[in-house]
């Protein structure tokens, strides 16, 4: 069993001629909040989809929760939670029905489902909307609900793909509090984002440019390494080499 929650070696994904992710090698410690930072199309989502078993790598290897993603993908799936960039709960089902469905899929007992529904909805203050169709609740709450559902079966690692896209700053703040609570409880969090301020909240981060890792470390380390005072500056320097 690997000491790390996630460990990759030379992970690569090609689409025809185009290399979406190039030679990705990194590791994430257990309980860490690890950020993937990058512009749109930098390969963050592709990398994440390989790790959670939605996309076959062209090259390289990775272990997630101690299991090889190529040979043991079902074991990987039992140990992870995922929240996609595109809202992917059923919006023609109610809040409770969505939770029950995923609880059932992950093999929770009815009592466990009831108990965790109560806890999760209480935490995000959505108890009152339990019987609402998901389609009718506001976006900010939808995102928090999606996170809650991803955590329902208490996975070892949770993957969040741009979880805060399109929500207001207050909800974003609230969302990151949830992420910290999750990490504090021992769950490893891998999150992609293109908000630079969010990157500062991560324990460690990697900046991806054109499918490859351009910088990696704690926010402080990364800034020191490139001699910049803010991630903003660094980001501009990395993505538009001529501008700095």
């Amino acid at each position: 069993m690997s000491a790390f929650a996630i460990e990759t070696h030379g992970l690569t994904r090609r689409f025809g001629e185009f290399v979406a992710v190039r030679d990705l090698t990194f590791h994430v410690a257990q309980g860490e909040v690890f950020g993937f930072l990058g512009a749109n199309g930098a390969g963050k989502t592709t990398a994440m989809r390989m790790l959670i078993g939605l996309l076959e790598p062209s090259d390289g290897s990775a272990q997630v929760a101690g299991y090889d993603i190529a040979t043991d993908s079902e074991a990987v799936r039992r140990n992870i939670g995922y929240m996609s960039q595109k809202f992917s709960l059923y919006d023609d089902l109610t809040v409770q029905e969505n939770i029950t469905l995923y609880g059932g899929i992950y093999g929770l007992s009815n009592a466990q489902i009831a108990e965790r529904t109560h806890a999760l909805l209480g935490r995000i203050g959505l108890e009152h909307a339990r019987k609402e169709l998901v389609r009718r609740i506001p976006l900010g709450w939808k995102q928090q609900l999606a996170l809650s559902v991803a955590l329902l079966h208490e996975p070892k690692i949770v993957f969040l793909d741009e979880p805060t896209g399109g929500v207001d700053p207050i909800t974003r703040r609230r969302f990151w509090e949830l992420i910290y609570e999750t990490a504090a409880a021992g769950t490893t969090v891998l999150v992609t984002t293109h908000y630079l301020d969010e990157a500062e909240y991560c324990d460690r981060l990697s900046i991806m440019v054109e499918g490859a890792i351009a910088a990696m470390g704690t926010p402080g380390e990364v800034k020191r390494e490139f001699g910049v005072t803010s991630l903003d500056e660094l980001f501009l320097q990395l993505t538009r080499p001529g501008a700095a």
Partner: protein
Amino acid sequence: MRVILFLMRKEFLQVFRDKATVFQIFFIPVVQLLVLSNAATFDIKRTSLAVVDEDRTTVSTGLTQRLEGGGRFRVVREQPTTAGVEFALLDREVSAVLRIPHGFEADLVRERHASLQLQVNAEEGASAGIILTAAQAVLADYTRELGMTMGAAGVVRGPVLTIATQGWFNPSRNYKHYMVPAILVSLTTIIGLLLTAQNIAREKELGTLDQLNVTPITKGQFITAKLLPFWLLSLMIFTIGLLIGKFVFGIPTRGSIPLVYLATAVYLVVALGIGLFISTFTNTQQQTMFVAFFVMLIYLLMSGLFTPVDSMPRWAQWAAEVNPVKHFAVILRAVLVKGAGWEVVARPILILAVGGVGILTLAVRKYSKQAH
């Protein structure tokens, strides 16, 4: 097993919450069954006929009267010359033209032999054949009758032919007994196959399938959970249709009803399995529906539901052997109409069962939680 129940519950909630869909999947089959069952016949009741009577004699007008009186023809034009009949045939005002040439009666009296000319609009082959034989029948009767009256000189020779016709299995010749099961098969297939195929494509399009794919659901569980709800829905549609067939159209139920349901249950696994299989390699709902439509059309038209399998060339008859619709139609017609039992339908049910296992295995294998 419990996982499958949770997934099935979700499918039912989604379908029954969509009022428009519920209305459609129950209403459209009922209306179509009621309407289309009246449409599925080749039997032409009355053919509109033009008679060009150049002879204008007792014998020629007598023939016109026999044609009109026989019930199979409606003489819409009767005229002494061919003026305008060509156009009437082209314009579909009449389906056939009978020309009685000048001297018809005289020839008959003098030479005991005369000729007539019949032109039939043969655009539709089967109808043309029926029209021709109907005309021949009237003519044969009339000839015999003339022979009696005109044979005054000599005595009629030869025996009188009588042909006693019997239709076995369906003595009333009610085509509905034959076609209602066919339409029921088509409707159940169309709705069931489409809903199943569309369902997965929709989840792909909405992105909800990814969320399911990162869970530890097995492929077998997934395929089963996608199949069962629509299998049950299709059985419901089939039941409603069967009840309508029985009580509105009075189709016979001579055989065993449990046997009918056994066959239906097996058949639906094949039909819906085809839908599932299609959706494993398509990406959008549009694509799925188009492929599903063409596959379905081939299955339906080559199954013998609407046109006789016996008339197809040998290779097509072979192809029909792997057509689930054909086997199901054979079973349904044999059990309902002919009262056939297990010994007759065992083979087609077995073929369907093999097909069902085959297509589901393919679907499970082809379905991938992972993009390549």
